[in-house]
Every structure is written in C-alpha cells, then in structure tokens.
C-alpha cells in the first residue's frame, strides 16, 4: 500500500490531512535525495552545493564555532602567526582572525541574501506585470529600468552610502541602506529577465485557456505565468549573490561599509594592507574567504544553469 493510499484510507475521502510526523520526515528525505540526484548530473553544481552547505553551516554555527570575541583587542598577542590558540593568527590589534572571519562572513552573507531576495521580490512582479500587460505600463516601466541601469559600477551604492553617512546613520541602519541600494540596483536585471520570459510565455495555450475561463489578468500573470519562468530567475539570483558579495566587500574595502570594529572581510583586508609586507597572511585570509564564497555561488549557479537548461549543458 503506497503512502498516498494510506492517506486516503483514513476516512475514505480525498480530503487532505497533515501526514504523520515520520511520513513527513521521510517525504522530506525523499525530496532532498531527489534534489541531490538532480544536482549530481552536474559536477560543478554538486561541488558548489557542498561549498554552499559548508558556508551556510559556518554562518549559522558562528557563535559555536568561533573561539574568541571577534572585537576584543589583545595587545599582548598582536600579529601572531596561526597557532593552536589562534587558528589563523591575530591581526594588528590582537584580534582572533578566525573568529572575525566567521562573524564577518555571517554578516556579509546575510546582507547579500536579503538584498537579492528583496530585488527578486520587487523586480520579478514588476517585470511580469509590465511584460504581461504591455502598452504604456511596459514603456514607462522599461524606461525606469533603463535609467537605473545607467548607473555604472559602484556609483549607485556610493550615492546611497554618502547619504547614509551624511545622516550619520549607525549600525543596522547603514546595512539597511546598503541592502536597499543593492536591491534597487539588482532589480532591473530581474525585471528585464522576467519580462522577456513573460513575453514568450504569454503566447502559450494555457494562458489563453485561463483567459477563456475568465481568470483575472493579474491572477494569470502572477499565479500561472510566474511559476513557469522561475528557473532562469533562480540561476540569475544565484550568480548575482556572488556578485553582490564582491560589491559589498569592495565598498567596505574602500572604507564605506560599516565602521570598525565590526568584523568585515573587505575592511579587514584593507586594514591588513599596512602589514602586507611583513605579515602577508593577514591579508590572505579575508581575500581567500571572499574568493571561496563567490566561487561557491558561481559554481552552483553555473551548474544549476546546465541542469535547468540542458541545451546549454552540451556546450
């Protein structure tokens, strides 16, 4: 007797009931193993997935994995090489580099994930609706998107950061400004992609069928068309995560991120420059950490693209 039949037999109807706990966990295990099976098709994706699991594990487990307070200075133990007490050594103020890396990574990854999720949340409905309805809304919408795309490189973030500094914002508020700038800058890409896919999808029969049965246009656009264009969006979002991490690190490298002593890969790397000749390892660790993180997202995104679009995988 299959699991589905067991569900049905409880009261003889098809009414949905929450499956018992062991069944639920078994189903989760099946879903995970299915996902893993799909991932195995691409070596890049599986390497990326393992790297990401380690990364997110370290971010979640930071309070337990860290051996020292990342901010506490200890002048007696300045610029120490890696040792049993300080796994990756100490920086110019005697702070434990390993613990700083963990806390800095947790913050950086959180900022990047929130920013990308936010840009999807704004950009995708924007693109889907302008693409689906077309006409004037489309024209105006796409000009706004073009205007946002006209900001080259870091400039949009520089403007936001300048305003944040002028208002003398502190702590979380600076991060919030940064997140909204990143989300705004990432929005056009998602909107354009979503719009492009919607234009192709709109011609298909199921849309016509939905229209024929009298579904509301907004409903068709968001609950019927949207699910069909998800895969390119997931790929873009994954690759964008790596890109966002590079931007945030570059901004804090320039000294425009959260002010010290907050652990921050970019800022720590910049501070390590003065000791580069004598203690090159201090500058190596944050740099390697950024590379690892960006590489993980890029590998996963690349592999995912191959899996979701098999035509490209043959290349």
């Amino acid at each position, binding site marked *: 007797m299959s699991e589905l039949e067991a569900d049905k037999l409880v009261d003889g109807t098809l009414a949905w009931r929450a499956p018992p706990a062991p069944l639920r966990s078994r189903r989760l295990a099946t879903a995970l193993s299915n996902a893993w099976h799909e991932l195995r098709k691409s070596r890049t994706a599986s390497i990326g997935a393992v790297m990401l699991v380690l990364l997110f594990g370290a971010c979640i487990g930071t309070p337990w994995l860290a051996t020292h307070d990342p901010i506490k200075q200890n002048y007696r133990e300045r610029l120490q090489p890696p040792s049993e007490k300080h796994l990756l050594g100490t920086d110019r103020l005697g702070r434990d580099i390993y613990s700083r890396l963990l806390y800095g990574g947790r913050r950086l990854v959180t900022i990047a994930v929130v920013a990308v999720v936010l840009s999807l949340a704004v950009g995708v409905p924007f693109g889907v609706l302008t693409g689906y309805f077309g006409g004037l809304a489309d024209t105006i919408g796409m000009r706004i998107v073009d205007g946002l795309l006209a900001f080259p490189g870091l400039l949009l973030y*520089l403007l936001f950061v300048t305003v944040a500094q002028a*208002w003398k914002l502190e702590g979380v508020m600076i991060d919030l400004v940064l997140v909204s700038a990143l989300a705004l800058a990432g929005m056009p890409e998602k909107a354009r992609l979503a719009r492009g896919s919607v234009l192709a999808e709109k011609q298909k029969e199921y849309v016509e069928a939905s229209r024929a049965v009298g579904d509301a246009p907004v409903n068709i656009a968001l609950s019927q068309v949207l699910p069909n264009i998800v895969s390119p969006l997931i790929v873009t979002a994954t690759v964008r995560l790596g890109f966002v991490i590079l931007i945030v690190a570059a901004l804090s490298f320039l000294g425009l991120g959260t002010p010290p002593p907050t652990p921050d890969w970019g800022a720590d790397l910049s501070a390590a420059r003065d000791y580069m000749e004598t203690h090159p390892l201090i500058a190596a660790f944050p740099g390697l950490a950024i590379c690892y993180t960006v590489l993980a997202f890029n590998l996963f995104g690349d592999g995912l693209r191959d899996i979701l679009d098999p035509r490209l995988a043959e290349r």
Partner: protein
Amino acid sequence: MLAYTLRRIAQLVPVLLVLSMAVFAFVEALPGSIVDTLIGTEGGDIEEARAILTKEYGLDRPVHERYVLWLGRALQGDFGKSLVTRRPISTELLSRIPATVYLASVGIVLSMLIAVPLGTFAAVRRNSAVDYTAQVTSLAGISIPEFWFAILCVLLFSLYLGWLPSSGYVSPFEDFWGSLQFLILPAAAIGFRQAAFTTRLTRSSMLDELSKEYVDTARALGHSERKVIFKYTLRNAMIPTITISGLQLANLLGGTVVLESIFAWPGIGRAIFEAILQRDYPLIQAGVLVLGFIVVVMNLLVDLTYRLLNPRVKFA
C-alpha cells in the same frame, strides 16, 4: 538603420531624465540645506552669505523649479563649483577623464588579447587540457575580488620583486615609457578580470557557431580546418565578444573606483571617491551624472555597432 538610430536616440531622453532626477534627489535627500554645508566653507557675514546662496541655488523656490534650474545649468556644462577646491566642477571632471579612458581602454584591449585566443582555442580543442585550464582560470577570475588581486600583484611585483612602482600616474603624453610602468599593474588587474568573462563568452559562442550547419558544409567542401575556423566561425563568434567588451568598457569608465584608489590613479572614479570622503556634494552629483551620461551613450554606440556587425538582427 537611420530611423532605428534616431528612435534609439529619442529613447535616451527619458532614460537621462530618470538618471538626472535620481542624481538630483540624492542631494535633496541630504540632511539640512546645502546652504549650511556651503556656509561652513565660506566664512564671513553668515546671514548675508546665507541670503545670497539661498537665492543662487534657488532654495526659496519649490522643488520642481529648482530641478529645472539645475538641469538647465547642467546642460550648459555649469555644475557650480567644488566645495573643496573652489574651482568649476566641469574643469575638475574634464581634467580627470583622460586618465580613466587611458586605463579602461588599455585594460579592455588587454583582456581581449587574452580572451579571444584562449576562448577560441578552448572551444576548438573542447575537453582538452587547454579547455579545462581556460575554464578553471576564468571561473577563478570572476570569483577573485579585483582589489585583492590588485594587492597581490603589488605585493609580488612591487614589494618582493621591485619590478614595478606600486602606485602613481604619469601622463603618456609627457613620458610614454615612464607612463607604461605605472600602467601595467592596474591595467593587468582590469584585463585579467574582464578576460575571465570574455573567455567564457568567446568559448561558448564559438562552440555555438561550430555546431551550425554551415560549418559542416564548409568542411564537406574540403576547406581546411584552419580556414573554417578563422575565415568563417571566428568572425561570427566575435560578434557577442565585441559587444560585451564594449559594454565592459562603458562600465569600466565609471566603475574603476576601487582600482583607481588602490593605484592612486587620478581618474574620474577616484575624483568621485575623494569627493565622498570630503563631503563635496556638488562634485559627487555632477560626477555621477556625467559618468551615467557616458555609459548611456556608450551603450547606444555598442548596440548600433552590434547591429552593423550583425545584419541578421531585425531593426524591430
């Protein structure tokens, strides 16, 4: 083509308007009035200065009138004066543009010199050691932060080996060979990173072309493999590569802030970065507007070139 070009130019107008509004809103979003910032640097009779400045910047008028006033002046190249140097912003920015153009264009040329042969070879010898190396290197290239790569280059070539200066700038018109010494490290840092993107693109568009039927036809007709690749496929495969390199160049003109500040390169990106540190708001505003304008125009030029190179694209 002409009609298409004109229509694209007309489409630029709303884009530039959005850009200018965003840049204008930036200064509006600053706390307090710009007059207070200005007064801080002026000194003298505060009340009188306040009245004059309020009138000069039109702060006694509503927002939309001020925007029109500001935009009108900006269109005539009048961005006001820098709060720090007291010189006209237009001269400040103009004097910084050559260094950025120099660095960005050499960087892009360098990236194409690396990427096109590497990407082509990787595609032709697919799954060979060269292909594998090219793929791994380019994946590493897009994952390494450019500032870290730049620092590592400085560490190796300036501090350890002492071959090249770690930062600075000499104009190529004054001393060409001397200028090259300063150029190599920053241009290599740009070239390597951009080459990573271009190699991947060249490889995949080359593979795309090689799988097309005309290639089989050319081979069946007995053309040598060399001729098939260099005369037929490479030309077609280069179209996306050239387009992307053009877009990269446009982006670099405004996006080399980080490298310019690491290498003390007196370009426009560093000018804006310094203006941020010194709270020189009119200069930031004008700088972003000018760079945005350059990027938009460059993008249009790239798009038009793309259509010239690839007549198959319909002028829709």
